[in-house]
């Protein structure tokens, strides 16, 4: 700060930068405080127990959110169970099983998939996937858990693939020449060297994908049918917490209905925070480990 300090004084600029950084941090805090503030009535145990029940019948005074919670968890985990192995297959294809040209094309397509609006996926699924499921399985309207699982799996696939891809990139170049010089086929290299060495990265990809699947609103809202119930099969309709929030705000309900909305919001916020903490611990361990 010696020679040029008369041209532009560095102190105010630094303060502006620091303040705007802390504004960003304050946003996160204020979201939490708002949700917590609106959830105050939950401290009353009778209110709490009425929310923690399985029935959602707003006109009879039942405001249970447990079926939404189950719906969210069920949908997110099953779509990840579908997307993760497929994502792994795509990653192996990109890293040696497939020829270089098609591998680049596949990776590029995956990146392009991230730019498709969620609502467009939902829109096309409503007019292609739902009628297809209705015709093939001849059960219900087609707006079902299964439709949402398939739609959501497509939505989180790029997240999973790109995360796995970055993990593969840290290990595969190290062993590529060695494995080839030893006469290993690309699939052998991936199965026996790269995949065993990247367990932590896979966990991170799974957690991140699960977070996205839990947080998505439009796919379950448009495809899952939104009946607040426990599904008996994949052809039944379900309602997720995210869809619940969207639906309750749209239909003007009474006060306990609003409370259920903020309770769902708080649960989602906590889940996001937990997921982030988990990812951070994974990353921290990796830095210490190596």
């Amino acid at each position, binding site marked *: 700060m010696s020679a040029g300090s008369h041209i532009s004084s560095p102190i105010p600029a630094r303060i502006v930068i620091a303040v705007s950084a802390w504004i960003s941090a304050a946003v996160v805090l204020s979201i939490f405080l708002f949700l917590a503030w609106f959830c105050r009535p939950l401290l009353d145990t009778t209110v709490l127990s009425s929310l923690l029940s399985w029935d959602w019948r707003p006109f009879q005074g039942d405001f249970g959110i447990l079926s939404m919670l189950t719906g969210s968890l069920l949908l997110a985990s099953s779509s990840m169970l579908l997307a993760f192995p497929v994502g792994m297959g795509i990653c192996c294809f990109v890293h040696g099983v497939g020829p270089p040209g098609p591998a680049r094309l596949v990776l590029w397509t995956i990146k392009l998939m991230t730019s498709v609006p969620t609502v467009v996926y939902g829109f096309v699924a409503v007019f292609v996937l739902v009628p297809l499921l209705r015709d093939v399985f001849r059960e219900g309207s087609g707006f079902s858990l299964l439709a949402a699982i398939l739609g959501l799996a497509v939505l989180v696939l790029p997240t999973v693939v790109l995360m796995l891809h970055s993990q593969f990139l840290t290990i595969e170049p190290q*062993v590529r020449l*060695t494995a080839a*010089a*030893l*006469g290993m086929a690309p699939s052998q290299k991936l199965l*026996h*060297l790269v995949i065993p060495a990247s367990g932590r990265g896979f966990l991170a990809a799974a957690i991140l994908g699960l977070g996205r699947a839990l947080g998505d609103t439009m796919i379950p809202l448009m495809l899952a049918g939104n009946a607040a119930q426990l599904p008996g099969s994949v052809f039944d309709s379900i309602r997720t917490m995210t869809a619940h929030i969207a639906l309750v705000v749209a239909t003007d309900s009474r006060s306990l209905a609003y409370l259920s909305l903020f309770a769902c919001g708080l649960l989602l916020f906590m889940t996001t925070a937990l997921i982030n903490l988990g990812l951070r611990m994974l990353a921290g361990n990796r830095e210490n480990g190596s």
Partner: protein
Amino acid sequence: MTAAVSIKNLRVTFNGAAVLEDITCKTRCGELTVIVGRSGSGKSTLLRAVNRLNECFPGCSTTGVVRLSLHDGQLAVYADGTCPERLRGRVGMVFQSPNVLPLSIERNMLLPQRLVRGITGRAAEEIMRRMLRRVGLFDEVCDRMDAQAATLSGGQQQRLCLARALALEPEVLLLDEPTASVDYQSARRIEDLLLSLKDELSLLVVSHSLPQTRRLADRVLLIREGRLTGQWHRGQANADAAFEKMLSTTF
């Protein structure tokens, strides 16, 4: 005696730029051939052309003929029907810097045997012990076979890589400056090892050192700017003088 490796009109390009051009030469069984040249002259590329490892780099294209004579007959390296994986199982390679796999010492030795040759269990362990003894590593590591291979010293790692390559029982062994990143003691050990190996298999070694070349070579190939500009053989007339004359310009 038949030629172990015979190369004819070899040309290797990366993204259109020629790295090797018009290479034609032969090496014989039971000989140790040293490839010398300045850095960037293409000697590593020549080595990698023998086991088609250049194909692992983007933009590579190879023309010409490379033939190996193995105990069950001739193998045309670049023929359509030749599977690169099977080829590389019979042509071992050791790199300049030790490249142990991110596994334990034991798994480093056993995994390639299982995957490439399908040898498992007692038989594989027997080969592992024999090869580790061969490179003089067995006594140093026998009590910590489960340790990560990366915990060994540089010289030990390089000998492990050599043992790993030998465990596949190759008939040709390629070594790309095998002593460049180890200390003097380890380098001499590896050199002695190579001399003891040359009765069993054909060795091609890239070297960057004149004393090493003098100690090891039965045959020298001199590469300059992608072309073969000189050959020397221990049996030729006035061998010592020819050796000095050819290599004085290189080192």
